[in-house]
């Protein structure tokens, strides 16, 4: 589904140049906790969140997020808008709640997709820890 179709479905305001709204969205992820986005988010997802801290853009770049929709009427500040435009990360906002926003998109066929980690087998890390008292 194109981001501009999502914009209509969720009656969004948008803060990015219109060309960025032509992005194809394959997966969505919803969370207010950046730690959860980093742990469970799938690369390339559209993120739905109520969090507007400036770290959202770093997380978006780390995970190559396709865009961010702020829910519950939250709006990004001017710095975030300007930086997002430079980095070509589309920003939108809706007055809808997170649950309703997700429900509308789910009903239209969009899915969350598995997180990158869940696709893998059990991680096989060698952990060594030393504490000096």
């Amino acid at each position, binding site marked *: 589904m194109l981001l501009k179709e999502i914009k209509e479905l969720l009656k969004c305001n948008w803060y990015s140049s219109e060309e960025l709204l032509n992005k194809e969205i394959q997966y969505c992820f919803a969370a*207010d*906790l*950046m*730690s*959860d*986005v*980093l*742990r469970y988010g799938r*690369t390339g997802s559209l993120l739905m969140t109520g*969090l507007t*801290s*400036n*770290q*959202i853009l*770093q*997380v978006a*770049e*780390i*995970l*190559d997020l396709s865009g961010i929709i702020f829910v519950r009427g939250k709006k990004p500040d001017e710095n975030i808008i300007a930086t997002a435009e430079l980095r070509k990360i589309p920003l939108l906002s809706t007055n809808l709640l997170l649950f309703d926003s997700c429900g509308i998109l789910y009903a239209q066929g969009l899915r969350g997709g598995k997180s*990158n*980690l869940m696709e*893998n*087998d059990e*991680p*096989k*890390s*060698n*952990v*060594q*820890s*030393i*504490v*000096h*008292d």
Partner: protein
Amino acid sequence: MNQRAMYSQSFTIKGGDFINAGTVSVRIKRLLKEIGLKPDIIYRAAICCYEAEMNVVMYANEATLDFTITVENITVKLSDKGPGIKNIELAMKEGYSTATEKMREMGFGAGMGLPNIKNNADVFEIESEIAKGTIISFKINLNGKH
């Protein structure tokens, strides 16, 4: 086996600098992309760097991040000056956190940072000295399944 460094760079990360937090990891991620590594390698390395960088910003005074790529792996060593970690076993447990309200407002402090590095890295080591600092090292293999 050839362990010769193809590229290495050091960065300084300042504790408490929430404005610039994450910029080192974003630079590293862009670099890995330019080099043309596989997307899942870039993704895992970027997440590990970012989680480690945020830990420094949230808990330490400052840190040096040494980043090396060889033909075999990406190695990152992050040495910080800070309070150290009293109980590493607890810190490695998902959900355990000593984060402040400010950190939580920014969407962090869920106690998932260190476990997330461990999950994404092929090798993860942590060493800490109370009132001195913490050294975190991780490797991501360029070949072979995680």
